[in-house]
């Protein structure tokens, strides 16, 4: 048998039909649904008299629109259009009989945090969601990617997707990470190297010692941002850490099924002599704590660097960089560590898990948020919030002066009331620094939770290693 990559193996196990021209119907094991990209899909089913083919494999949770303030049970905290979207999901989940975690459920949270937490995401699965950060689930060695609303409807109706196979790309991070360097720094550094289109057409498998050393939470952070490098999906081969994380979760297999699943999962790795269409290798020790300076996730620099000039770039990037610098209100040559911020946002599907909160708490313990700064922590799910309270992290955040919020996407994309004002500068643990992403005119610098916590203390972009 010819050697295969992990992606090849998962793909081959899910092809339900292949046409002569190579167009495949890929069977979908898990379909995650949220309120923003699904209403038109359910409406499409109603208009054509179709049903959900596999409601047992379909899981819905509202996350993008929901307020994260403590008074959110009061429906007036939502704008009318947001409320309509959330109510539409309530109704669609009920009408079509799919699994549902409503806003009032303690398990509610960001769809990409809830899926793994509840054991819906398992190794070797195909997982899709009408959300580009579905790549997160690749951390379990599952083929997971975002889809548009037409495809959401297609999966609801047929439990398949019309697909052509992508190419294989290996991103190896060798050796150990230095202190203060995290999964977020790995994933941003990779994007800085490949550019936001470097992964287009590929599925990335992340491997190497530095990846193996990461916790499941860290691996999810790495895979989450595969899409920011242009790759629909990022993958990490499952190992004992994966199996330990999954075991005992509500929807993980049990008993004899667990053993059978484990036997298959242990075959899910890339064969030694598998073919790679593209390979990138980065030494773990060369990765520094990084921040973004511009309006594309590829605009990554170590915190010790200076703001670049447009003339440092070539081609279309010259104009793009000039536009970014103007939008971000930055002067070339300024040390990044002198850039003052107004707001700190810790949360999102990239960095809203318990380990992220622990990392932030380790920096914030006994410290105070700089006067005048707005700082909020939005846990990724109700269960992450509960665990952080149990571990005493919430007290650290509150004593430091952070707002301690309920779960949701919040200021990552600012569809709920958590938004930046024009010109407001934010240290954010989210995934996109696009113009207007966190609010019209808002300026976003992406970084790790530890770096965001450090920035909260000093009021400027800060090298976390100075506070360790």
């Amino acid at each position: 048998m010819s050697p295969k990559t992990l992606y090849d193996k998962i793909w081959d196990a899910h092809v339900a039909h292949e046409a002569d021209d190579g167009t495949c119907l890929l069977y979908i094991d898990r379909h995650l649904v949220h309120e923003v990209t699904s209403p038109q899909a359910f409406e499409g089913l109603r208009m054509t008299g179709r049903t959900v083919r596999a409601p047992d494999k379909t899981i819905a949770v509202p996350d993008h629109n929901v307020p994260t303030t403590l008074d959110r049970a009061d429906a007036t905290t939502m704008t009318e259009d947001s409320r309509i979207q959330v109510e539409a999901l309530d109704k669609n989940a009920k009408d079509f009989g799919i699994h549902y975690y409503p806003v009032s459920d303690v398990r509610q949270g960001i769809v990409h945090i809830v899926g793994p937490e509840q054991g819906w995401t398992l190794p070797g699965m195909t997982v899709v969601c009408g959300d580009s950060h579905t790549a997160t689930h690749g951390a379990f060695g599952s083929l997971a990617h975002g889809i548009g609303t037409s495809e959401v409807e297609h999966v609801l109706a047929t439990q398949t997707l019309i697909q052509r196979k992508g190419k294989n790309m290996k991103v190896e991070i060798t050796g150990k990470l230095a202190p203060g360097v995290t999964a977020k720094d790995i994933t941003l550094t990779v994007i800085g190297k490949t550019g936001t289109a470097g992964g287009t057409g590929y599925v990335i498998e992340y491997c190497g010692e530095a990846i193996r050393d990461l916790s499941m939470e860290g691996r999810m952070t790495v895979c989450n941002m595969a899409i920011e490098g242009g790759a629909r999906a990022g993958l990490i081969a499952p190992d004992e850490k994966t199996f330990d994380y999954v075991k005992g979760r509500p929807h993980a297999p049990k008993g004899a099924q667990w053993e059978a699943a484990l036997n298959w999962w242990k075959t899910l790795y890339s064969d030694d002599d598998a073919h790679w269409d593209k390979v990138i290798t980065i030494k773990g020790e060369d990765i520094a704590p990084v921040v973004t300076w511009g309006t594309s996730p590829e605009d990554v620099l170590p915190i010790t660097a200076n703001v670049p000039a447009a003339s440092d770039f070539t081609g279309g990037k010259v104009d793009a960089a000039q536009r970014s610098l103007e939008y971000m209100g930055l002067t070339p040559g300024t040390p990044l560590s002198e850039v003052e911020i107004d707001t700190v946002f810790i949360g999102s599907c990239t960095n809203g898990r318990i380990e992220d909160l622990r990392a932030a708490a380790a920096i914030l313990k006994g410290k105070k948020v700089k006067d005048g700064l707005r700082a909020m922590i939005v846990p990724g799910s109700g269960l992450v919030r509960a665990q952080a309270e149990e571990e005493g992290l919430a007290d650290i955040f509150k004593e430091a002066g952070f707002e301690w919020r309920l779960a949701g996407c919040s200021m990552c994309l600012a569809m709920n009331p958590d938004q930046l004002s024009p010109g407001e500068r934010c240290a954010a643990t989210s995934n996109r620094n696009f113009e207007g992403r966190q609010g019209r005119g808002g300026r976003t610098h992406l970084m790790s939770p530890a770096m965001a916590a450090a920035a909260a203390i000093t009021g400027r972009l800060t090298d976390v290693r100075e506070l360790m």
Partner: protein
Amino acid sequence: MDPFNTLTGIAAPLPLINIDTDMIIPKQFLKTIKRTGLGVNLFDEMRYDDDRNEIPTFVLNKPQYRDANILVTGENFGCGSSREHAPWAIKDFGISCVIAPSYADIFYNNCFKNGILPIVLPQEQVDVLMKDAEKGANARISIDLEAQTITNSEGEVFSFEVDAFKKHCLMNGLDDIGLTMEKVAAIDTFESTAAQSRPWV
């Protein structure tokens, strides 16, 4: 879905790279539960100022491009989120064809589901068409999907590649779900086999 065969019209030049889905349709317009009506908010933050007045220098606000139905733009167009609101907004504005050196994967795929033809051309050819588009409304561009050609106002012809299945669906305005339903037996078979081999799924 509207079938796409030929298109002749005005091309609007938008020479920026990495135009992301937040630029195409900002998040505040994702709260709709419909697919239509988003055209007025296409490129909203580049198109309107804080008081909702049109910014006259933005290409789609210029008189000669208000009726554009083709967009010529830079590499990695449509990067970012999977929101299908991006192609919905483009289509609702009246644009049915985008020409760029490259696209983000999910956006590219979403276009075909909505009767929009995203054409990939080498940068040098996009540059020629960009110059042509900059001439304004008199410089009309023609697209022939069947022949896979673009003809600019100078009569220059450019050929482009497109996946045969996607082309077939676009030309006939086919509904993907209907096509897949014809293969339901294969899905049934796959599902029952998988229920044996991977019962935990």
